[in-house]
Each structure stands twice: as C-alpha cells, then as structure tokens.
C-alpha cells in the first residue's frame, strides 16, 4: 500500500487552494479535482488497509516529528468525511461561487483533524477549519452571529492550547501515543494531576463540538444558514471534531471519578436540555440544530463511557441523516422564504421523492427499526447494559421519547395539509414550492436507500447485529476484499 496517500489527503486540497487563487477561473475545477482525489485516495487507503500505519512527516520518527495515524478509527473518519463533504458540495454547488478556496482549505483541515497524531498539529488544524467555518458563515449575511462564533471559537481554541501546553510541561511530548506511553510508565495514578489540562482540553473542544454551555454560537449561525454552510457545520465539521474528541478521550483522558462525573453531567445535560429545546422550537432548522447539539452530547457521553464502537455508530447515523435533513430544511426555507412548521403544512406533497428521503432520515435519526439508527441505538443500549450501566440507558430512552415526539410532529405537519382526520390532497399544498433538482433528488434517494439498507442488511446477515463492532468490521469487511 502506498502510504503517501495519507499525506496527499491533506496536501492535495491545500495545493489546490493555493493554486486556485492564481487562476481564479479554474477554482471550481480545482475544488472538484481535490474532492475527487480525496474520495479516490480514501477509497484506495480503505481497500489496501491491513494494519495501522504511522506516517512520519519530514522523515523524523515520532514522537520527534509530526506523525499522521491511519488506523481503523481514522480510516472510518476519512471515509465518512470525504463522502459527506463531496455529497454536500454536489448538492449545494450553487452556493460555492467565490468560496471554492475556503472549501478546499476546510477539506484539507478536516482531514488533518482526523488523521493527525500530534496535539499541537491538532490545534493548528482545528484553528484552520474554524477560520474556514467563520468565513463560510459570513454567507448568511448576519455578521453579528459570525462574530459571536469567532469570539467563542477563538477562546475555545485558546483554552485547548493552554491545556496542550500544560500537558507538554508534564510529559515533555506532544505526540498523543508518546504521551500515552509516558503516562503508562508512571507507576502511580496520574488522574489527579491531569484534572486541569483535561478540563481545559474538554472545554476547548466543546466549543466546536457544540456542547452546552458553549454552544451559544450555534443557534445564531445555523438558524438561517443555507444548505451549504449549515449542512457542512452540522455534519462534516461536527463529525471531524467529534472524531478528534473521541481520539483524545480514548488515549489521553485518564480521569478521576469526580472529573468523569462532571464531564458526564455536562454531556448528558447537553443531551437532555438540547432535546427539550428542540421539542419547544417551531422552525425546521432550529429543531435540527438543537437535535444536532443533543447528538453531539450523546456521542461524547458514549466516548467517555469507553464505548467507542457504539459512539461511532451514533455519529455515522447522525452525520448521514443530518446531512439529508438539513439540506432539505434549508432548501424548503429558501424556496418558501420561511421554515416555520406551521406555514409549511403538507409541503412534501409537492415533491414526494424528497419527502420520502426526509422521512427516512428522520426515522433513522430517532432509531426506528428497519433504519440504520435502530442498529446504532440497539448497539448503544446493549453495550451500556453490558457495562452494567443502568441510568444512562434510562436517560437515552426517555430522551428518545422526546425526540420521537418532535420528529413525528414535524413529519405529520410537513406531510399533512388539512385538519386532522382529513385525507391530504396534493392540491391543498399549492401555495408551497419545493423545486426539483436532479442532482439533489438522486443523492437524497441514494442516501435514503443506503440508510434503509444499512438498517435491514445487518438484521438478515448477522446474528449479533446488536453487538456489532464497526471498527473490526471495517478491517475484516473492507480490508479483506
């Protein structure tokens, strides 16, 4: 396997970005080429994957040089990220104009966030992707919220850097694996000393991962965003940040009991409060953004419990279904000038294909059987019970009821025109628009079918589908082809 593809995932989009400033007219093609190359390269890496690879940049062996780590975890990450990024770029290509360079840089940075094995390098890539996100959100024309985002994001990355500096002082290294080894050598428990740096890193990452109380920026930025910016932030950016978060929790977070309780309260609190907020909202995009905050809370809570595989399943389900939901919500908002649920009764009767795509994604989000979300949720509950955890499954089930309530309310409103009990007629929805775009329809249909297929096939093929390890599946299922 040619390991150079690992670095090219970052170098090619960066080079494309630099070049497209020189020849502005070709910017579109450079971006397309970079996205296509990244898709192909991540495919090749997945196809050839045998065992974890560590790529030493500059030829200096880790921990001295910066290294990129390609293991099952980051392989899954780059596959997910590059596919989602490409789909969003295709679906929302009319907004890309003038922002090609920013998107290329964001693509490079997000790949870097997932692949890097070095703490400071992680900070640099987080900062690049955050700045790209600030610039993209200026598309919303509501600069006040972008400014809020910028201030919070900069403070967050500052705290992250502070935590990294304290870690460097204690362990003398910036390489994540090396720090892990140095922690293991120390014979006494390190949890007590790590409280401050871990709290700082957790706080810093929670800003980008949208955990409460640091998610104040998300509402303003996302509530009128178009299908490019909003979808990128709720799916691609949030996937990369959560994956980096998971990697750090997995390798560095040696927590004392009280710190674990604090972190868990924050994440589970995010889950509960954000779902309640989503329930109380009346606008399509606001509902979705609060649901996205809640899912981030759930994913981080699962990582904190050490359930990597379950967390990844929830993450994948959330990223794919949010991509569909947010794209359509932004499109509905743009076509009709509003995304208020009350004003959109029966809008899907105008375009049933897109309506079915939306419905499938929403069903998967709440985890109904026959959809991928069901597999994810079943895995979460089973692995939590196996870990003898009773209260977290309870919370998840209760929250699922709230989630189910607002999703069903959303769907019934969007499908149903008239009063209750009356049969809906397409004529009643005349005043709404949901224009048909071939690209959009094809992608939404394929993604929806993929969600359903991923929900049904494991039920038929695997005996232990409720106990399914996505990481080893990736090596056995794809690597062994």
């Amino acid at each position: 396997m040619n390991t150079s593809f690992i670095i090219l995932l970052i170098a090619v989009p960066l080079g494309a970005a630099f070049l497209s400033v020189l020849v502005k007219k070709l910017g579109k093609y450079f971006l397309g080429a970079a996205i296509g190359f990244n898709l192909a390269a991540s495919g090749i890496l997945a196809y050839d994957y045998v065992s974890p690879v560590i790529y030493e940049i500059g030829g200096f062996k880790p921990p001295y040089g910066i290294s990129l780590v390609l293991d099952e975890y980051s392989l899954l990450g780059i596959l997910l990220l590059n596919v989602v990024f490409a789909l969003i770029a295709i679906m929302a290509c009319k907004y890309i104009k003038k922002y090609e360079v920013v998107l290329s840089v964001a693509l490079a940075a997000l790949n870097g966030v997932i692949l890097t094995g070095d703490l400071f390098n992680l900070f640099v890539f987080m900062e690049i992707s955050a700045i790209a996100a600030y610039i993209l959100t200026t598309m919303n024309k509501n600069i006040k919220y972008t400014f809020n985002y910028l201030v919070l994001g900069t403070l967050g990355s500052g705290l992250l850097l502070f935590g990294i500096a304290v870690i460097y002082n204690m362990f003398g290294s910036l390489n994540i694996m090396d720090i892990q080894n140095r922690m293991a050598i120390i014979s006494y428990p390190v949890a007590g000393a790590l409280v401050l740096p871990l709290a700082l890193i957790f706080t810093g990452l929670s800003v980008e991962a949208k955990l409460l109380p640091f998610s104040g920026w998300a509402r303003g930025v996302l509530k009128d965003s178009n299908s490019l910016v909003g979808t990128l932030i709720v799916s691609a950016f949030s996937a990369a940040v959560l994956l980096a978060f998971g990697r750090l929790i997995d390798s560095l977070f040696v927590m004392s009991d009280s710190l674990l309780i604090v972190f868990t309260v924050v994440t589970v609190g995010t889950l509960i409060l954000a779902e309640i907020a989503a329930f109380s909202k009346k606008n399509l995009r606001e509902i979705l953004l609060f649901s996205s905050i809640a899912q981030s809370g759930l994913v981080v809570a699962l990582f904190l419990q050490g359930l990597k595989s379950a967390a990844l399943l929830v993450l994948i389900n959330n990223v794919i279904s949010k991509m569909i939901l947010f794209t359509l919500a932004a499109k509905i908002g743009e076509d009709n000038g509003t995304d208020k649920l009350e004003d959109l009764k029966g809008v899907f009767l105008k375009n049933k294909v897109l309506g079915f795509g939306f419905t499938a994604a929403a069903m998967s989000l709440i985890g109904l059987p026959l959809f991928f979300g069901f597999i994810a949720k079943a895995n979460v509950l089973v692995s939590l019970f196996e870990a003898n955890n009773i209260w977290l499954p309870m919370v998840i089930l209760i929250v699922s009821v709230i989630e189910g309530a607002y999703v069903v309310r959303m769907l019934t409103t969007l499908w149903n025109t008239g009063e209750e009990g009356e049969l809906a007629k397409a004529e009643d929805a005349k005043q709404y628009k949901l224009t048909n775009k071939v690209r959009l329809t094809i992608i939404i249909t394929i993604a929806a079918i993929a969600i359903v297929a991923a929900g049904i096939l494991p039920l038929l093929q695997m005996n232990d589908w409720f106990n399914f390890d996505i990481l080893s599946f990736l090596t056995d299922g794809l690597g062994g082809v």
Partner: protein
Amino acid sequence: MIQYFSIVLMLVGIYGLLSQRNVIKLIAALNIFEIGLNLFIVSIGFVKDGLVPILTSNNESSAMLYVDPLPHALVLTSIVIGVGVTALALALAKKMHDKYGTYDMDEMGGK
C-alpha cells in the same frame, strides 16, 4: 515569576470577554488572552541559566544548557494564527459598524 503574570493576563482576557459588549473591546480581550497564553507557553520552556537556543561562535556546542526551543516554535505559530484571527475579527467589526453604525453589540438588536 512571569508565569504567574501570564496566567493572570489570561484571566483578565476572560474577564473582558465576559463583561464587555463592545466589539473592539472584545477583540482586545481576545488579544490580551492570547498575549498571556503566549507568555505562558514560552515560560514553560524557560530553563534557569539556560542560553538562547541559537548556536553562535560564542556558544558553539550543543552540549551547553539551552532553553527549550520547542515552545518558541509553538508560540511563533500561535502569534501568526492570532494575527489572522484578529484581522478577520476586525474586518467583521468594520462590516458591523457599516451596517449598524455602532460597535456596541447591545445596540445592534436582534437583527
């Protein structure tokens, strides 16, 4: 000693972010926080009686006691990132001032 002051500076920056509503002052608070952070990072690399980490004709051997060069490299990166973010924030501030005629976020209203 400088280390204590650097942490206090970061706290002053956080205080500014919490208490101020003026766009320019918020950006200033971010800058204060960044200066404190940079001082802190350099201070963790300081070695008592260490030399400047440059080989010269006076300090010509690598076996002498130098201060840690890695934090300096990190701070160079951090300063440049800081100026990038500040420039972007100031451009946003300029735009906001064009739109609302004020730098005060409370006077800008919900829109």
